């Protein structure tokens, strides 16, 4: 049995390089942030956090982040539900094509996406002009909360389709037929069978979208050159800006963001365990 022990010992040596790199680039920075969020000029304590929550500016950043994430996730999810359900019902050539296209556009985010939207929907954007001339809108400001929600919704759609499309596997066609046979109409079927079966998958997708939007930095930075007040922009400005650097305060803001993300991740893992299409 000695040789097995030795080979196990040797094998565990292979874990070391990975552990080293993971600690340097993932654990250590996070630990630094966690420790320094509790450090202020006055010493150890929650001073940074109380500073954040007392400041109207930082409260606004948190609120903007939550609002934009929430609404873009709702709209993204709705479009993804309608889209991916219909995707299952069309012929396979169209389905494969649109599915592949959605997959590819999931890489179309961040700086390039912001630029594309400026060209299309900026002050002199082609679509803005078109809609103005048609008299549908008076004015449109892409660099506002509404503008950001539209932009975020766009990058949520491909991710939503990607996650939801397989989830519709849980809905079996014979359930629908049985329900129909027993006299249920379409609404009753969806309300009593379809929706309850799909709920964990829908909520799971929703929280993933939420996390996706909460952590997004590149898109909003590229669009507004860091002038729109959301949480990731504030964090970055406190460590890499050119006005006032305060890494400890940045750490406190970062821990708030991590807290939100952790909550989302835990909820998602819990929902994943209860969803139909993964369990079976």
């Amino acid at each position: 049995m000695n040789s097995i022990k030795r080979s196990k010992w040797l094998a565990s040596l292979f874990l070391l390089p990975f552990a080293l790199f993971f600690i340097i680039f993932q654990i250590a920075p996070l630990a630094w942030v966690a420790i320094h969020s509790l450090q202020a000029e006055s010493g150890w304590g929650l001073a940074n956090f109380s500073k954040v929550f007392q400041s109207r500016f930082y409260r606004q950043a948190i609120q903007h982040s939550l609002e934009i994430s929430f609404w873009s996730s709702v709209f993204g999810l709705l479009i993804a539900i309608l889209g991916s359900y219909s995707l299952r019902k069309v012929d396979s050539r169209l389905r494969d094509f649109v599915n592949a296209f959605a997959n590819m556009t999931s890489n179309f985010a961040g700086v390039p996406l912001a630029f594309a939207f400026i060209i299309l929907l900026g002050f002199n954007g082609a679509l803005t002009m078109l809609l103005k001339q048609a008299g549908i809108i008076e004015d449109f400001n892409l660099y506002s909360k509404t503008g950001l929600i539209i932009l975020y919704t766009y990058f949520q759609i491909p991710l939503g389709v990607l996650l939801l499309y397989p989830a519709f596997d849980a809905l079996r066609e014979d359930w629908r037929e049985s329900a129909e046979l027993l006299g249920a109409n379409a609404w009753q079927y969806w309300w009593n069978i379809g929706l309850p079966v799909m709920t964990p998958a829908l909520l799971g997708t929703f929280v993933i979208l939420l996390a996706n939007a909460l952590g997004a930095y590149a898109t909003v930075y590229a669009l507004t050159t860091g002038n729109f007040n959301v949480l990731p922009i504030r964090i970055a400005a406190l460590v890499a800006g050119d006005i006032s650097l305060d890494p400890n305060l940045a750490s406190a803001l970062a821990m708030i963001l991590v807290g939100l993300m952790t909550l989302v991740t835990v909820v998602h893992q819990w929902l994943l365990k209860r969803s139909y299409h993964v369990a079976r």
Partner: protein
Amino acid sequence: MSRAEPGTTRLYHRLMVYLLFIILLLPLAGTLLYSLATSWSASLLPSGLTFKWYVALWSDPRFLAAFGQSLLVCVGALLLSVLLILPLLFVVHYHFPRLDALMNILILLPFAVPPVVSSVGLLQLYGSGPMAMVGTPWILIGCYFTVALPFMYRAITNNLQAINLRDLMDAAQLLGASTFQAAFLVVLPNLRKGLLVALLLSFSFLFGEFVFANLLVGTRYETLQVYLNNMRNSSGHFNSALVISYFLFVLVLTWAANRLNKDKS
């Protein structure tokens, strides 16, 4: 489905799919048109078409440098990831299956900790001192390893489960191979295709990474995304050509990954 759907339902589903496609296509199509336009303002369509913005872009040495530097960083990061993750996965699945549960929690970290948060710590830890890396491509390679980790880990795990690692290893060892030989000559070739797909997809999202690149390195080792952001004040047509060139490159990569994936099954 044997039962024919009523015509209106079928039409509805087709319409929804077309609508989804159009929504996703619109920003890209607009950018493409803009990149080919001589000038375009206050009218529905541009006044003329030209390739001059692409010519200008592809003859800009700063763009070519940024493109090359992006390639180097991404390839470096993926090489590092394979070197670190493959042995890890092999050891975990063959020797310590119980570690898989721990790993599944650890790989959630890059997901729960957004790059902007990690950057706060990274800037302070490696800004100066014995491990000063900020401003060099090395720190990006390390960070991109953590970005690619969750995806690579899951993708390779799925492949390992599909090939029945234990049986394969036992068979190879029965025929006289050492653990090392079995891993390299039997298991690795079986993983080749799945690994290639995972690498292509990881490459396509690493290539678009901006947060680490901008906060940790910036113009000191300009990658494509940072270059794109720094060109914000140049002509919109030029920027469109840049966006479209970037997207086409990523498109080819994801298309290749898709094709490979289909061949596999």
